[in-house]
């Protein structure tokens, strides 16, 4: 059965009345979406999907953006790569 020590790491205490009452109130009222009554939960369920969609849209819209300075950046990165490799050799012997 459930151990006396929970995720909080401290022993559980007796039920405060307000907790049980508030839990009941929280369960009441409102519509049920996808079998979930609490709007804060079905809301975040949808929010997760929408935020992933935001990432998809952002990625599509900007798929080819910010690549115009490629020649300069390749030059810059070539120098940086060589320096980094030397540093790594020096630091880690790898």
């Amino acid at each position, binding site marked *: *059965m*459930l*151990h*006396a020590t*929970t*995720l*909080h*790491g*401290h022993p*559980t*205490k*007796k*039920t*405060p009345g307000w*907790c*049980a009452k*508030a*839990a009941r109130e*929280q*369960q009441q009222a409102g519509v*049920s979406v*996808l*079998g*979930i*009554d*609490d709007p804060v*939960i079905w809301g*975040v*369920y949808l*929010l*997760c*999907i929408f*935020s*992933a969609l*935001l*990432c*998809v849209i*952002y*990625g*599509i819209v*900007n*798929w*080819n*953006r*910010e*690549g115009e300075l490629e020649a300069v*950046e*390749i030059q*810059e*990165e*070539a120098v*940086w*790569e*060589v320096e*980094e490799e030397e540093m*790594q050799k*020096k*630091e*880690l*012997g790898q």
Partner: protein
Amino acid sequence: MDLLLLNVMILIYLLATLYLGYRAWRETKDSEGYLVAGRKTHPYIMAMSYGATFISTSAIVGFGGTAGLFGMGLLWLTFLNIFVGIFLAFVVYGKRTRKIGHNLHAMTFPEFMGRRFDSKFIQWFSGLVIFLGMPLYASVVLIGAARFMETTLEINFDVALLIYSVIIAAYVIWGGLRGVMYTDAMQGTIMFVGMIFLLIMTYTHLGGITPAHQALTDMVNLVPKSLAAQGHAGWTAMPVFGSAWWWTLISTIVMGVGIGVLAMPQLVVRFMTVKSNRELNRGVLIGGIFILAMTGVAFMVGALSNVFFYQTQGNISVNIANGNADSIIPIYINAATPEWFVYLFMLTLLAAAMSTSSSQFHSQGSAIGRDIYETLSGKKGGGSIMLTRAGILVAVIIAVTLGYILPENIIARGTAIFFGLCAAAFLPMYTSALYWRGATKAGAIAGLITGTLVTVFWYLFIHKAEAVPLGVAKMLLGRDVLITQMPWPVVDPIIVALPLAVVVTVIVSLMTKPPSDDHLDECFRGVR
């Protein structure tokens, strides 16, 4: 346990890894080739590799299990993982970090900060925070892997931890598979397919999306009294507002980890190695979907495992796992999925944990060798190589030792502590380094020290979950915590330490002399 099937799967997995490693090596033999290969790297490979490093056993086993205990409220963390950990991290932080990091030739996160603010103190102090704080996080990743092995291979946890530690030590000492993005991407792909498979299987088994959720909603009366007493209001409801359960969920798990990801040293470093901003733009697309499939599915499945166990074994998940939330996901996957899938999932999970562990140990080693020793002694080369290697070895030993002594239900909390510490200590300084030319060396130092000290003080004297087992408050003050009045003993340090560190950084910066224009121009060269 089907030994033949397990061995065949290990063999196929190793062959695939070796083949991809060989292919990557052939394409990246010299630095020119490395650069071109990097340029040509498909954004899918880049984002999957990032995702496989970002997500470890901690996220799936630890936090998935926590969702089995707390319920779907954990989805707030998924939202932050996607919106903050991918969107803001890539778009708002990643692009500038990449550019300024290149301008400053920084290799590590402390070095980036030290050079941006022209302060040796910032570099060695940040290195010290990482070296002292990261072992806990490294340790819980090991525990997550060992818990999965314990359940799947039916061996003792201590033995599983020992086996895994030996493998990881050999892997790290051998040098790891750094730079081999294909293998990381393969792990990411298997994890992605595996998690989608797991979600479909779970919903199918429970009769569809709405019936599965409804069944979980209807289980509200099965919440143990001890949990209801702390504010647990069911697995499809938020905990009671202001209760101990609510504070732990929101302040420690959601805020701590959701925001802390922005200032994780080993992830920040990855932005500096990204080839161009365009790769970051493309990575946002794939990263967003990947994280939804990882933590979103892990938390949904973790919560829904209660319905599965109740229907098949007549008990809720945490009781099936003997009170240890860390075991919920391993037990569920073993009970609910075909054997071949369990083995595949285990191999992928272990491989993902290895790449995460490896980068953690390297971060700690370089913190000691490069950021602390070199900065304080002013010497480079020989001594610091030895110290870096010694630092890695010490980090492995500390993590394994902690793995044996840490209590149950620790994976999510241990991760949250390190993420929260990083957020409070580094985030104000890191954000102002990227966006505020008026931020000064003194302001950054003041914010760094405030964030670190307030966090440590809070854990030692205020936050009950750590203050009681650590016992410092008891020893010095004669009582468990300094403030007993609710909600303070359950309010996570990040709620206090991060805002304080922000205020201190801003006020001290406004009161002190800004850095020279030359230095700032060098830092922000090419930043649009």
